[in-house]
């Protein structure tokens, strides 16, 4: 028995060391022979976020010594929308300006302040990006404690001279996808894995957490649907969080069963459930924050369009300002349709099949909103 055990340990140990050394990942400077690329992509699948943060962090080096601290929203990286979009912005900045960055992903609201302090107290960051409105309260305190530190916040306003605030015209972008949904549900339309039933003119909206922010999505969407026709019913449901895929699926399934043709979601990760439900029901869905027909490509055959919120623009712009030594602390920047902070982009796979009359009506409305001829409400209770 003892011999057996010893052999086993020896064999396991040898296999383990061989396995570790044989892995094609690891540091690239170490002169590993073999294909680093395949190892890299393999690593990407299993621990994508960490890998990407390393890329953003240490590759740059050269041209700029700007250091950025990124504090993401509680959904974490890999959500395929909000946080990943913010990361795109910092990656773009690191490619163009050679800034280096450090990512952290708080899991709870109470951790925001600790992370902000951790970044701020060393003084080694030229800009700390706080992603998401839940950070506003903590940042209001932290920015006072560290008046020399530059901060930026996305989706909320913190009135401090060292904080640059960025908000979006989500209602404007949602108006456009709402109008598209409203026009399509009245027609006979089929593309990819879905089709509409024109005898029932119903569309749906699935929100994450009820509040002023998601209310802007809902208000704009409903106004857009009403622009298409006053007779269309809009079903609205809130999941209660941004993570619960199953709850998102249930909410959307109920809507599809009630005859909804198209469901728009503003529910973060829970929105994945909406896409699942759309595939199961053979109907359509509209994505949010990023072009989700690309980021969630498994559902590209039901995603008609996405209301893209250019969080990356906000992050990129704020870093650019710091690089150019023109940090706009204390200011509030609203990125609407005109500033291309929001946009309606058609799905990668089935977007091209949307009829001409729908797309032209949508682009007319876009121009009308930019010109100020259409006033889009921001509060669903004012509709």
């Amino acid at each position, binding site marked *: 028995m003892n011999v057996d055990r010893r052999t086993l340990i020896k064999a396991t140990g040898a296999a383990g060391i061989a396995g570790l050394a044989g892995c094609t*990942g690891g540091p690239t400077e170490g002169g590993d022979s073999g294909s680093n690329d395949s190892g890299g992509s393999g690593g990407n699948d299993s621990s994508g976020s960490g890998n990407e943060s390393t890329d953003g962090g240490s590759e740059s080096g050269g041209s700029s010594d700007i250091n950025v601290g990124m504090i993401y929203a509680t959904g974490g990286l890999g959500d395929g929308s909000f946080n990943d979009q913010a990361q795109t912005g910092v990656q773009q900045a690191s490619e163009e300006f050679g800034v280096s960055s450090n990512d952290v992903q708080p899991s709870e609201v109470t951790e925001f302040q600790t992370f902000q302090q951790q970044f701020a107290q060393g003084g080694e960051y030229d800009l700390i990006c706080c992603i998401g409105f839940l950070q506003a309260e903590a940042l209001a305190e932290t920015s006072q404690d560290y008046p020399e530190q530059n901060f930026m916040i996305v989706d909320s306003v913190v009135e401090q001279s060292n904080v640059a605030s960025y908000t979006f015209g989500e209602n404007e972008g949602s108006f456009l996808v709402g109008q598209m949904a409203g026009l399509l549900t009245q027609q006979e339309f089929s593309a990819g894995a879905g089709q509409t039933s024109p005898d029932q003119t119903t569309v749906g909206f699935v929100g994450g957490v009820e509040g002023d922010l998601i209310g802007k999505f809902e208000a704009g969407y409903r106004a857009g649907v009403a622009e298409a026709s006053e007779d269309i019913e809009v079903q609205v449901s809130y999941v209660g*969080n941004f993570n619960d895929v199953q709850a998102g699926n249930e909410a959307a399934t109920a809507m599809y069963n009630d005859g909804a043709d198209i469901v728009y979601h503003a529910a973060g990760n829970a929105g994945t459930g909406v896409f699942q439900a759309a595939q199961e029901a053979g109907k359509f869905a509209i994505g949010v924050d990023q072009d989700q027909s690309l980021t969630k490509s498994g559902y590209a055959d039901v995603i008609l369009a996405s209301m893209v919120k250019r969080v990356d623009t906000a992050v990129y712009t704020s870093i650019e300002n710091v690089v150019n030594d023109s940090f706009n602390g204390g200011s509030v920047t609203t990125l609407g349709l005109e500033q291309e902070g929001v946009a309606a982009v058609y799905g990668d796979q089935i977007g091209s099949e949307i009829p001409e009359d729908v797309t032209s009506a949508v682009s007319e409305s876009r121009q009308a909103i930019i010109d100020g001829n259409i006033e889009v409400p921001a509060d669903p209770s004012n509709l």
Partner: protein
Amino acid sequence: MSAGDWRDRGRSALERLVRASAFERVLISTAALVLSMFVGVLIILAAGRMTTCTTAATTFFGVGFCYDPFAIYDSLFLGALGDPINPLFKPLQGEFAAPFRRGWTPLNSQMAVTLRETTILIFTGLGVAIAFRAGIFNIGMQGQLVVGALATALTVLWTSSLVSGLVGTLVLIPFGLAVGALAGGLFGAIPGALKAYADANEVITTIMLNFVATSVALFLVANPFKDPESPANETVGLPDFATIPSVLYEPRDNFSIIALGIALALVGASYYLLEHTSFGYDIRTSGIQPEAAEYGGVDAARTIVSSMTLSGAIGGVGGAMYVLMILGNYQTGVPSYGFDGITVSILAGNNPLGVGFAALLFGVLKSGSIIVDVSTDVPPQLVGVLRGLIILFVAMPEFFRMIGAKFVIESDEGQAVATDGGVVEDNGGGSDE
């Protein structure tokens, strides 16, 4: 080896574990901790080979790794204490300097994070432990915490307009804690009563009531009691005098040594209650052998309801502390203190005195994860794995002890001539250490 051999071996190991002295149990836990770190190091090294980076964090045997396991564990444990160790202090290399880093005080802000997590977890851990000792698996701690937190936030906000200043603090803090205890206690009494009088399984009712609590809280905070100024779902913030004053620590650290003191006092009180009062005796005997307890004159239904009420009340105080010390209002997305409390309680062997240490371990891991996230490139998911490993390894011996205690009693009954009371007394005393 035959199957019988293995069984005998397993049984004797289990018996050995059940009869282990307090000192031996500390040794077992320490060994488990070291073993979990050893496994963790291997996982970190493997993960470091599966990702790509430009510079190696560490090199072993000529092979570069992207993550340095020693730096990670250093950040995880020492980072949580605010990096107390002097970099020149290397006893292993024979260099002796002052062990503590210059400028380090136990009052640093990271220590505050560690201790504030510990404080809340002591409350939830204690609550779960008391229910456990009565033989009730209270998974509803999270719901009781939420209800306590919300009730405190709303009533203290409402009454804070009536008083102010130092008097306000002296009146409102005890009042807020009492409201939290009352609300949590009432909410905990519901599954207790359902179990006692309708024979409803408390595991199911408490899980369901968690959803009821968080959803009702969400509705209330999103609609009638929402702060109209804020985009988040939260109540209007409490005035400064209505929050627990921070003593020794900076106000921005959101930690009060007073709260920790209250938590520790409650640890002592719970221990005294369980071990030295007749109510505690009722709880313990009902937990070990409900039929025997009832035969011995314990009102089973009443004990179930009152121990669940007490459990919920302690959780409710935890919720009140969360509001009065950390947040200063109620906001949706309460961290899973209640569920962590279950693990804390198991880690502590359901012993109130152990809850303090188990909660501290949890607090260190939670706070240390933040430092790992800030100071290294390691993905937070991997840190979660390391945390889970530590907890799993440290909790398992205690878990087997709890199972073993039952098993050994049964096997003793088969062999030895002993009265029920004798056996119960013996093992009951053993697990209390």
